[in-house]
Structures are given as C-alpha cells and as structure tokens.
C-alpha cells in the first residue's frame, strides 16, 4: 500500500510545475493558437462563402452572357435578313429605275431619231424639190429658149386652162 500514499514533495513540485506550465502556455501558446485557429476558421468560412457567392454570380453572368449571345445572334440574323431585303429592294428599284430610264432614253432617242429622220426627209424633199425645180427650170429654159417649145408650153397651159 506504499504506492497509494502520495508524497508531499512530488505533490508540491507538480503543483509548482503545472501552474507554471499552465500560466506560461496560456499566455504564450494557447492564446495565440486558439485565437489564430478561430480567426483562420472564420477567414476560411468567409472565403468559402465569398467563393460560393462569386460562383453564383459567375453562373448568373454566364447565363446572362448566353442570353445576350442568343439575342445578338437573333439580332444579327434579323439584321442580315433585313439587309438582304433592303438590298433586294434597292437592287430591284435600281433595276426598275434603270429600265425605266433606259426605256425613256430609248423612247427619247426614237423620238429624236424620228424627228431627225423627218427633218432629214423634209430637207431631202426640199432639196429634191429645189433640184427638181432647178432641173425643170433648166429644162424649161432649154425648151422655152426655142419658139416651138414656147408654143408647146403655151398650148399645154392653154390645155390646162381648158380643163379647168
């Protein structure tokens, strides 16, 4: 039973050493360790929640982006379609206009040609007329220079008068 009786000396030294260890470690080890652990845990929890939030935001952004993309694609298609229509319209209009213009020009040209032709014909006719008169004058002068011619002419005129 000797082992079951505590010795005073060992009790005393244990008391001193334990209290010293307790006070020293409390100040220099446990306090910084526990405080740092708490703060780190808080920091990690904050980081995780921030990451979670950012992730949510990213997902939102991504879906928004996709929406925007789809919208943009639709818009592009619409714009392309519109542009094509516009182009077709413009081309069609231009063609129409060009045709009209061309027709007008052709018509004008024909009118002018006809006018020119008529003018030319009139001139030619005049010229021919003048030439014929001149020829006839010359012939007449030739015929009438002789007396029989004058007489024939006179008779012819007289015939004409008779007929009238």
């Amino acid at each position, binding site marked *: 039973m*000797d*082992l*079951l*009786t*505590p*010795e*005073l*000396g*060992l*009790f*005393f*030294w*244990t*008391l001193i*050493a*334990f209290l*010293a*260890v*307790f006070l*020293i*470690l*409390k100040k*220099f*080890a*446990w*306090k*910084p*360790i*526990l*405080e*740092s*652990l*708490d*703060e*780190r845990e808080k*920091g990690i929890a904050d980081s995780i929640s921030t990451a979670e939030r950012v992730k949510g935001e990213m997902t939102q952004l991504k879906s928004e982006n996709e929406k925007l993309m789809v919208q943009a694609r639709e818009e592009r298609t619409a714009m392309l379609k519109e542009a094509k229509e516009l182009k077709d319209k413009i081309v069609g209009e231009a063609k129409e206009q060009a045709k009209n213009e061309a027709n007008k020009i052709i018509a004008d040209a024909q009118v002018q040609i006809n006018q020119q032709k008529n003018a030319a014909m009139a001139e030619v006719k005049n010229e021919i007329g003048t030439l014929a008169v001149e020829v006839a004058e010359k012939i007449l002068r030739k015929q009438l220079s002789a007396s029989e011619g004058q007489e024939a002419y006179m008779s012819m005129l007289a015939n004409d008068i008779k007929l009238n």
Partner: protein
Amino acid sequence: MSSKRFLSLLVLVFGLFFQANYSFAQQEEKPVVAGTEAAAEHKEEKKGINITEIVFGHVSDSHEWHFFSTESADGKENAFAIPLPMIIYQPGKGLSFFLSNKFEEWKKNEETQTYISNSHEGLHMEKKMKEKVIADDGSQVYDFSLTKNVISMFIGVFLLLWLMTKASKNYKYGPMNAPKGFQNFIEIVVVFIRDEVAIPNLGAKKAGKFMPLLLTIFFFIWINNLLGLLPGGANFTGNIAVTAFLALVAFIVMIANSNKHFWSHLLNPPDVPFAAKVLLVLIEIMSLFIKPIALMIRLFANMLAGHIVILSVICMIFIFAGLSKLAGTMFIPVSIAFSIFMFMLELLVAAIQAFIFANLTSVFLGQVMEGDDHGHEAHGEHAHA
C-alpha cells in the same frame, strides 16, 4: 466509461496481487535453488533476483536516477546512477540541501525486507517499496527533494514549453499564414480537444474559457506519459501524488465554476419524496468527491499497470533463466515480442489516458455548469456511471 474504470481497478488489483504473488514465489524459490546447487548456494542467493524489488524499484520514485548496475570481478556492485539533490525541511531545523549520494552505505534488514542507509545530517533513508527519508531521532521530516519523478517532470515541462512556444511562433505572421511543420500537429490536437472534448461538454460559448486548462492537462499528462515510457524514464504519471494533484485541480475548477442550479439540484432534488431525498443527497455528495478520486485512480492505475506489465514481461526472462539457462534463452523472443506489443499499447494508452483525463474534467465541468443555458442536457449522464 464504466467498463474502462472497471478495467483500471481490475488492473490495479491485479498489479497488487501480482506483487504479493511474487513475494510468495520468491520465498518458495530459494530453497529449490539452494537444494539443486548446494555448492553455489551462497552465490546463488546473492544473484537470485527479487522481482518485487526490481519492478517496484522501477515504478516508484527514487532519490537517484539509476540507469543500470554492473558487477565487478570481486562481486561488488557498481551502479550507474545520477545522484539527485535532496531538499529536506525539518521543523525547528530548517531546510537542508545535499546530494542523495551522501546516503551510500545500505544495509538490509532481513526481517522487514527493508534497506536502511547510513546517517547524514541526522537523517537516514529507508527503502522498501518506496524510499523514505527519516530523521534519526524520529522527528517529523518533510521531503521536498528533486526526485527522479520531479526531474522527469521538469524535463517534460521544458520540452512542452519549448515545443509549444516554438510552434506558436509562426502565429505572429497572422492567422491566415499557412501552418507548417510541428505547428500542424499541435493544431490538429488543439482542434481535436476543442471540438471533441470542450465544445460537446461545455457548449461552444464556455469552451473557450476552459480550453487553456484542458489543453494544459492533456499535453502535460501526455508528454509525461510518453517520457515515462522511455527506457530509464520515470513513472511520473503513474504516481498517486501527481494524479492526486491533477484531480485536485479538476476538483477546484469544478467547485469554483459550479452554479446555483447545480447545488440546488444536488442538495434539494426536485420531485423526490423526502426519504429518497436524504439518500439521494448523500449519494450525490459522495459522487461529487468520487469524481476527482476516480480521475486520480484511473490515470495512476493505468500508467502504473502499464509499467508493471512491461517490467514483469522483461523480468520473466530472468525468472525462466532462474529455472534453467535454456528456458531463459528460449523465453527471450517471447518476452521481447510481448513487451513490444505492450509498448505499442502503452503508447496508445499514454494518449488515451491524457484524453480521458481532459475529457472527464470537461464532462464534470459541464455538469456543474449545467442549467446556465439549457442547450446541453444530455451530456452528464454517461459520466455518472
């Protein structure tokens, strides 16, 4: 918990029984040895080992740090031991300091199986299972010597302080600085104590207040348990004075933090008939004191038993060698294998006992503080068992 406590008691009883048994065995052995080898009787008697003496010499405190002894050719024993300082207080005489090697001549009193030393400054030592400093005139002596256990504790304490302050140095760089090296290990243990010991028993709000105490108890016990396992180490935590002090700390903290709710329930249990109330109050008051006593005995018995078992297993080699040289030689591998197994077990027990001590301290603390906030009702029950 109850099975654990039962086991501890069983081990304690077994240990004491073991010791008694060996004394018998020893007494019976002598005539056998003397009978078979009559010629060498004298020498054999001197050489025959006293297992009780060896085992209890190793597990009890000592005023010198003994490593091993050799025997020179003339049969004289040379002990390789460090004498430790003795600090003796005698009322009326005051303090006296000297080294323990002043007690150098030991005589054996065959009747009481006690070794008695020479006298120095009016003091002498008696060594049976324990060493006692006794005044020659029989007056009161208070022994505050730096014994083997005290020195071992100082080594443990300095180791603990060094390791902890080293590990906590890194924290000055801020809490978000990544922990490294030994700091990682400390943090795992600290978080374990906080999350598995303090918070479940004390609640998150109060855990912080008692964390330094629980951590100090845990590491103090653990490091000293481990130091005790080193060959040549002291059986510090297997000493009842040490566990008594630790239990006293737990008890004082318990009483200092007990609340009105606890005392009113203890002294006046509600909804109980008067006759039962008297009995219940008696039992409750007893249980209040039994709790720290259980703490004290548990650690003491576990560590002591571990040491005794390892030593006994080693000593078996010599017991068998006493029967025949061959048996002793054959038993060496068995003994070594078993002691390795025991060492592994003791490594585990060193941590487990430290954990249990810290855990039960927090359980008891949780009980006396119950009712402050009604968040943790269930925790007290399993510790009552």
